[in-house]
């Protein structure tokens, strides 16, 4: 059985595990979903009204029955109804997802645009002062938490330039691209900062590895120009670890960037999950965690497939 088939076969198994884990853990959260939904007004409910609400959301059944019912729904594409939003969970997730997806894409673009050239530059000047400079900057970038970067950006903008970043609203890209980018550029820079540092470090070290390979030395000794050696011969192979790192980071970002969304008051997936956990919105937590885990696993699978495209020597079946 080759690697890809094995990965595809364990896929549903892991998803089943994720679904059980999230189903049980959200039910272990102290408190009652109906009380969390209605707040102080829950005290005004008669026992009959409470029972009717519990029956409506299926909360009156035993856990195994609730789980079975939910799982059957999931298989049909029905993730249930969110108690807090009063609409289908999938709709709520899909409303938030464009922002999260765009933020993840923008952050990755920023990280690659800065990190890749910086890493290659440092590798070609190995152990020279400019290499050391890039390495120090990358190390600092990797060690700075994104909430520190986010707060510093806001501070510099507000104190240095007297402007406050746009916060709390989100305009879809296709509605008004300029306004959309204005809203997302600072959070994307915040997330892209540490990401760029990681890309710099990994592309530098993998470029150094490739530059010492025999075939690169052969190309050089044949008199191939230095730039061509780097771009045509070394880069395609040096990209493999960069693709892995970027893929995994991107997968994480698709789960929402809770802290950065919180700082910039963005209505993304991360904050939605945080609120759903705090509100004990069972269906929304279950649905969104399943959605996030699925995305994460699909991205990881795609990263593995990208290996094969970038380096035909890698046989996925051998691993």
């Amino acid at each position, binding site marked *: 059985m080759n690697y890809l088939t094995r990965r595809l076969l*364990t896929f549903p*198994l*892991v*998803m089943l*595990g*994720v679904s059980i*884990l*999230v189903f049980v*853990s*959200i039910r*272990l*959260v*102290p408190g009652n979903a109906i009380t969390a939904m209605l707040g102080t007004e829950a005290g005004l409910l008669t026992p009959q009204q409470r029972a009717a609400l519990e029956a409506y959301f299926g909360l009156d059944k035993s856990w195994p029955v609730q789980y079975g019912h939910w799982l059957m729904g999931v298989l049909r594409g029905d993730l249930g109804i969110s108690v807090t939003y009063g609409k289908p969970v999938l709709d709520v997730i899909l409303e938030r997802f464009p922002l999260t997806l765009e933020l993840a894409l923008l952050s990755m673009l920023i990280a690659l645009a800065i990190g890749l050239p910086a890493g290659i530059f*440092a590798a070609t000047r190995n152990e020279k002062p400019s290499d050391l400079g890039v*390495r120090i900057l*990358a*190390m*600092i970038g*990797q*060690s*700075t*938490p994104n*909430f*520190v970067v986010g*707060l*510093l950006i*806001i*501070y510099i903008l*507000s*104190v240095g330039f007297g402007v406050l970043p746009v916060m709390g609203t989100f305009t879809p890209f296709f509605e008004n691209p300029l306004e959309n980018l204005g809203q997302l550029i600072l959070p994307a820079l915040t997330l892209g900062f540490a990401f760029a540092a990681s890309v*710099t*470090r*990994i592309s*530098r*070290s*993998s470029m*150094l*590895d490739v530059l*010492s390979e025999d075939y690169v030395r052969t190309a050089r000794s044949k008199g191939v120009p230095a730039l061509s050696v780097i771009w045509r011969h070394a880069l395609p192979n040096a990209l493999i670890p960069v693709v892995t790192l970027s893929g995994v980071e991107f*997968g*994480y970002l698709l*789960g*929402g960037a*809770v*802290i950065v969304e*919180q*700082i910039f008051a963005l209505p993304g997936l*991360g904050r939605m*999950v*945080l609120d759903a*956990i*705090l509100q004990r919105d069972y269906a929304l*937590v279950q649905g969104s*965690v399943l959605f*996030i*885990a699925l995305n*994460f*696993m699909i991205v990881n699978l795609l990263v593995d497939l990208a290996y094969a495209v970038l380096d035909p020597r890698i046989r996925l079946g051998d691993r």
Partner: protein
Amino acid sequence: MGIVKAIFAHPSGRIGGTIVGLYILIAFLGMAGITPHDPLMQFRVDRLHAPNAAYWMGTDLFGRDVASRLMVGIGQSFVVAFASVALAATAGTVLGLAAAWFGKGWDGLIMRVMDVLLAFPAILLALLIIAVVGPGTWTSVMAIAIVYTPIFTRVVRGPALSLKTRDFVDAARTFGSSRHYILTRHLMLNLVAPLTVQVTLALAWGLLTEAGLSFLGLGTQPPASSLGLMLSDSRNLMETAPWLLVFPGLAIMIGILGFNLLGDALRDILDPKTRRAVA
């Protein structure tokens, strides 16, 4: 002592080792209550005072000394990071060794459970655990430990699998060494190097996650002091009192930098394969 010498002979190791050493000292002083002022004392006449000789890093909205709170906060963050990484490393080592040693069904079961945990973005898993148990210092420890256990399990399982088939393990078996002896002496001793590197890098990540959870209000609870909490409090005051943002921000960054540099140096020293390539 050979390893300490090697760390200080390595450029990143020297800087990282010094930072980590200094932070451990500050953490001890903070935890022992040896701070310039009482970290909870409110000097009401000196609220939001800029840094001066009496308050090295200024005071906060309640007139509390930022430097003292920072020292206690570093201690708090270190306790959470060290405790959670110790738990994760222990659990991960036991699970990784068990998966590698017993193989087949056990390996499949343990690694699939780890896959499930790894399918969650880390912060999300931590949030879920905190929601179940309620926020607090020890919840953060547990949450960070659970999030990091699968990584240690993987770090241990891979090398353990290959060590298991090596001749010296077969030889030990033939000589009648007990399973316990083989696992603790032959396998564990050979895993010390990858584990040490992973522990150091995990400590950087532990500091980061503790600060992140406290920043969201889900870690250390006020009035106790924590770096993430201090940063979160600085949000509305950064224009009038930038020192509330700058000092805790720098403290977190330099602490994480220290562990990252030390981890890189250890990887160079303990794993000759990566010596040249590591950035």
